[in-house]
């Protein structure tokens, strides 16, 4: 009896557990709109569930803005020109910003544009409007980047 219960438990666990997807930056970020101070980005990411995919998409949007730039946009150069150097010199700040999600204070608006459930994951497209001006000033104040000048 015990053996049957164990076997059933194992089968039940293996059926219910989906693969855990860890965050890894992608380039699936594009500009929808921009103003003098803000940029609205569309970022797509997949994870085990919609909420997690949405969070990853938002983080992906910020990382692309910070370290890569958004092609064909008003921010096609990254805010931080040297990612490796910045990670070494401002590790604490950037961890707080990206992993601890303090980037949220720079979000003007965000929502899920679409969400598609697939076999082992949910693909979510997130729209996020970011106050780039405020973000840039914060990076300057915390000496992650220098003010404009030589």
């Amino acid at each position, binding site marked *: 009896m015990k053996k049957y219960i164990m076997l059933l438990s194992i089968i039940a666990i293996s059926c219910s557990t989906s693969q855990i997807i860890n965050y890894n930056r992608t380039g699936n970020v594009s500009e929808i709109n*921009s*103003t*003098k101070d803000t940029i609205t980005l569309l970022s797509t990411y997949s994870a085990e569930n919609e909420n997690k995919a949405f969070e990853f998409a938002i983080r992906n949007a910020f990382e692309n803005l910070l370290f890569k730039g958004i092609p064909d946009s*008003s*921010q*096609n*150069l990254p805010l931080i*020109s040297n990612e490796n150097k910045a990670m070494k010199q401002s590790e604490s700040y950037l961890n707080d910003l990206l992993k601890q999600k303090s980037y949220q204070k720079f979000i003007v608006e965000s929502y899920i544009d679409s969400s598609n459930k697939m076999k082992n994951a949910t693909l979510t497209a997130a729209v996020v409007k970011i106050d*780039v*001006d405020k973000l840039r000033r914060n990076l300057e104040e915390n000496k992650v980047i220098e*003010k*404009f*000048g*030589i």
Partner: protein
Amino acid sequence: MMRLIILLLITVSMSMNIFAQEADKIAQPTIMVIPFSKKHISPRMEYERNEMVRIAITKVKEGFDARGVNTIDFMSRVKQLSVNDALENDQANSLKDEVIGNSGADIYIEVEASKNAGNSGNNVNVILTAYDAFSGESLANKTSSSPTMYTDNFEKLTEKAIEKELDNLLATIQEKFNLIRENGRTVVLTVGVSEDADFDLDAETDDGDFLSDYIETIVEEFAFKNSYHVQGITSNKIIFDLVKIPLKTEKGRNYRVSRFASLISRELKNLGYEVNRTIVGNKIVITIQ
């Protein structure tokens, strides 16, 4: 009481020293936004007759001001100059150079703006080109078009066009600044022999080198990362159209163009020559007498 005064004086002078050192670290450039003007047309005339350009210049300036970048007003500089309204061809070109040269601007940005009106709506195109005021080197250029809309509000369309690329323009200029910090600043150097001299650049030095070769050797020695380029050599002139000088001295002070000129002049004086030098912006002319 006397001890207190002395202590106060020491404290004040120390804080001033620290401030001076801090001031050397931060160099915010000043930017002047000017209208693009074709040859034989003065920038002032272009500014006064072209409403789109006036709007574009204002919007670019506003954008820089919002980013905390120091800007210089173009028209106020023009009015300060005691030059007649440039309708004549020769004055047209010199007015632009005079305005830039006397403005104190480190960077100037030429703005070109035009509107398109069509059946599917109106839009505005802008071209922004940034130059280093001293060397004339191009730092960045961006073109941008506003969305096409059914509107006669060209001011708004211009603003939209500029918004799209202003941050990119500043970011590209900053990249150039980073390169300058890494590779040095460009100066142009001409070393020539005076007309009254009884020798030329083929004269031999004590080591048996030609004077022109010696000059090239000392330029190479003092150039930042030994980086330079010779544009041309004649019997009485050698032109270096690119010599890199460092941004900072070993002690962290700003490395002035005059310092580099002094180094070259000193080496020539050590050979026994009399030397005159003229410096305008980043252009050095050394004349060997």
